[in-house]
C-alpha cells in the first residue's frame, strides 16, 4: 500500500528558508525509509508561498483528493487556517515546528517544542545570568504575541524588568526607530520572536548600530535553517530548541546534504524527518492509514527516530523533547545547555502556577560550550 503524504510548506515567500528546511527533512525521510525497505510513501507537495489564503485552498484540495496525513505548516497562523479543514475532512496534521502552546487539537500531532521547552529555559537562563532589564520584540501575529506574553510573565516572576515591547508585521523588515528605541532603553538582553526578513534585518541592524555595547539577544526558535542568511550579526545569539545540527547523526546529515538547499540540519529539518518516520511506523503498526487509528498506534509505541525516541502523549498529543540552549557562532550553533532527559510538553503551562522555584540570580557567567 502506498501512503499519499501531503507536504504543505511555504518553500517560497517571506519565511521560505524555514519551509525549505522542513520540506527537505520530510523528503529526506521518505527517501531514507524507501532505502530501508519501508512501505512506499508518495509525497503530494504544495507551496502556499506564505499566503494564508493559499494554505486553506491547498489543504482543502489535498484533503478532497483523499490525502489523510499532512506534514506541514510553519507558522501558527497557517496551522490555524488548516485545522477547520482537517476537522471537516478527518485529516491529521503532523506539525513539526516550535509553537506558542495553548492548543491540543484532535487533528494535530505536535512534534515541535512547546513553551515549557523554549520560553522557560530562556527566561531561567536570563535570570541565572544576573540580567535585570529585558526588551521584547516579535512578529505581529500569534507566535510573537503569545511567546512574548509568556516571556513577560516568566521574567516578571523572576524579578526582571521588561523595559519595552515592539511588534513588526510578518514579512516586513524591522524599522530603524525600533533599534534606536532598544538602544535608548539600555536593556541587558532582547528576546527576539521575529521570523523571516524581520528577524534578519533586526539582527543585522542591531549589530551594525553605531552606538553599541553588545546586547545579548535570545530566541525561542532560531535554527540553522536561516542562520547563514543572517551572517556574522547572529554571532552570540542564544537560541532554545529541541534539536540543533550538533545533535544530528549521520542519517540526518546525509539527508540534509542531499535534500536541504543549504545542506544544513535544523530543528525544522530534523522534526519533519522524524514526523515521517513516526507516521510510517504507526501506519505499519496500525495496518491502516485511518488517522485516529494511526495516532493511537503512534502514541502506544514510541518510534525510534533520527532525533532519538520520541514518545507522544496520547492525551495532549505532544511529543516529549529535550530542551536545549545553543549559542550561534560563525553560522553554527554550539550547545551550551541540555536537559538530561526528554521533557513532556506542557502546552497549557499548567506547571507554572504551583509556585515554581525561581532560579537564584547570580553574577554574569560566561557561556560554557557543552561538548
Amino acid at each position, binding site marked *: 500500500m502506498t501512503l499519499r503524504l501531503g507536504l504543505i510548506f511555504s518553500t517560497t515567500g517571506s519565511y521560505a528558508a524555514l519551509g525549505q528546511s522542513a520540506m527537505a527533512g520530510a523528503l529526506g525521510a521518505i527517501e531514507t525509509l524507501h532505502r530501508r525497505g519501508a512501505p512506499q510513501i508518495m509525497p503530494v507537495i504544495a507551496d502556499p508561498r506564505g499566503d494564508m489564503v493559499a494554505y486553506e485552498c491547498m489543504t482543502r484540495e489535498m484533503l478532497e483528493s483523499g490525502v489523510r496525513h499532512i506534514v506541514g505548516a510553519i507558522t501558527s497562523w497557517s496551522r490555524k487556517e488548516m485545522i477547520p479543514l482537517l476537522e471537516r475532512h478527518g485529516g491529521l496534521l503532523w506539525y513539526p515546528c516550535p509553537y506558542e502552546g*495553548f492548543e*491540543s*487539537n*484532535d487533528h494535530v500531532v505536535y512534534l515541535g517544542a512547546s513553551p515549557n521547552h523554549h520560553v522557560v529555559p530562556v527566561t531561567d537562563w536570563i535570570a541565572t545570568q544576573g540580567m535585570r532589564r529585558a526588551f521584547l520584540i516579535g512578529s505581529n501575529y500569534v507566535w510573537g504575541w503569545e511567546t512574548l*506574553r509568556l516571556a513577560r*510573565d516568566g521574567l516578571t516572576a523572576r524579578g526582571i524588568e521588561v523595559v519595552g515591547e515592539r511588534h513588526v508585521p510578518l514579512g516586513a523588515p524591522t524599522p530603524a526607530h525600533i533599534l534606536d528605541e532598544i538602544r535608548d532603553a539600555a536593556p541587558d538582553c532582547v528576546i527576539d520572536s521575529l521570523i523571516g526578513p524581520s528577524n534578519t534585518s533586526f539582527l543585522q541592524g542591531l549589530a551594525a548600530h553605531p552606538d553599541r555595547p553588545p546586547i545579548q539577544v535570545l530566541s525561542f526558535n532560531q535554527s540553522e535553517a536561516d542562520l547563514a542568511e543572517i551572517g556574522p550579526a547572529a554571532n552570540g545569539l542564544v537560541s532554545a530548541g529541541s534539536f540543533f545540527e550538533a545533535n544530528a547523526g549521520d542519517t540526518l546529515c546525509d539527508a540534509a546534504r542531499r535534500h536541504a538547499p543549504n545542506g544544513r540540519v535544523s530543528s525544522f529539518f530534523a522534526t519533519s524527518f522524524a514526523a515521517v518516520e513516526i507516521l510510517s511506523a504507526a501506519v505499519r503498526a496500525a495496518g491502516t492509514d485511518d488517522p485516529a487509528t494511526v495516532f493511537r498506534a503512534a502514541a502506544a509505541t514510541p518510534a525510534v527516530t533520527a532525533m532519538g525516541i520520541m514518545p507522544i502523549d496520547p*492525551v*495532549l498529543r505532544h511529543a516529549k523533547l529535550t530542551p536545549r540552549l545553543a549559542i550561534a557562532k560563525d553560522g553554527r550553533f554550539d550547545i551550551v545547555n541540555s536537559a538530561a532527559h526528554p521533557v513532556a510538553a506542557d*502546552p*497549557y*503551562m*499548567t*506547571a*507554572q*502556577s*504551583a509556585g515554581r522555584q525561581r532560579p537564584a540570580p547570580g553574577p554574569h557567567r560566561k557561556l560554557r560550550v557543552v561538548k
Partner: protein
Amino acid sequence: MTPVPVHNFSGQTALVLHLSPEIGQRIKDRCDRLGVRALILTDDLETEAARGANTLILDIDTGDDRLLPWPRAAAPMPLIGLIGSESPGRLAWALAQEVDAFIPVSGLGNLFSAMVIAHATFAQKAERRAREADEARRGSGRLDVVRAVLALMEGGRDEALALKQLRTMAMVERISIEEAASRLLSERHRAGGRTG
C-alpha cells in the same frame, strides 16, 4: 497592556452534569489536558459534591433549576453551558441561570477558552455585585448624612460647617462619610443626647 485573565486551572475540580457517558468522557479527556479533575455526575447535584468544586459544566438541554442546590442565578462557581439543541427555551433557561460561558457540544476542543471566559465572567459578576451592594449601602446612608448634619447644626453651626465637621470625622477615622454619619447618630442615641 491588557491584563491576561486567569488561564491556569491545574489542580482544580470541574463537575460535569451530563446524562451522556460518551460526552462526559469527552469532557473528562479535555479536562485532563488542562490538568483539571473532572467529576461526572448524572443525577442531581448535591450540595456536598458542589463544595470544593471550581467549575460546573452542565447540559443546557436537560438543565433544570431543581437540579442545582442554589437559587436561580446564584451559583457559587463559574458555570459552562453545553449547547445542544439551540432551542430558545433552553437558552432562556441558561441565561436566567446566568451561565458564564457557552460551548457547543460539537466544539469541546475549545473547552479551555470556555473555562477562561467563564472564570473571568464569574469574577466580573462578583465584582459588580459587591460594587452594587456598596452603592446601595451608601445610598441608604444618605439620609443618615442629612440627619447627622442637622444634629451637628444644633450647636449653632451652619450647614456648611456641620458638613465640614462630619467630613473631618470621616477622614480622621478613615471611613466613608455615610459610615461617619451612622456612627455619630448611634453614639448620640446611646448617649441620649448631644455628645459634642
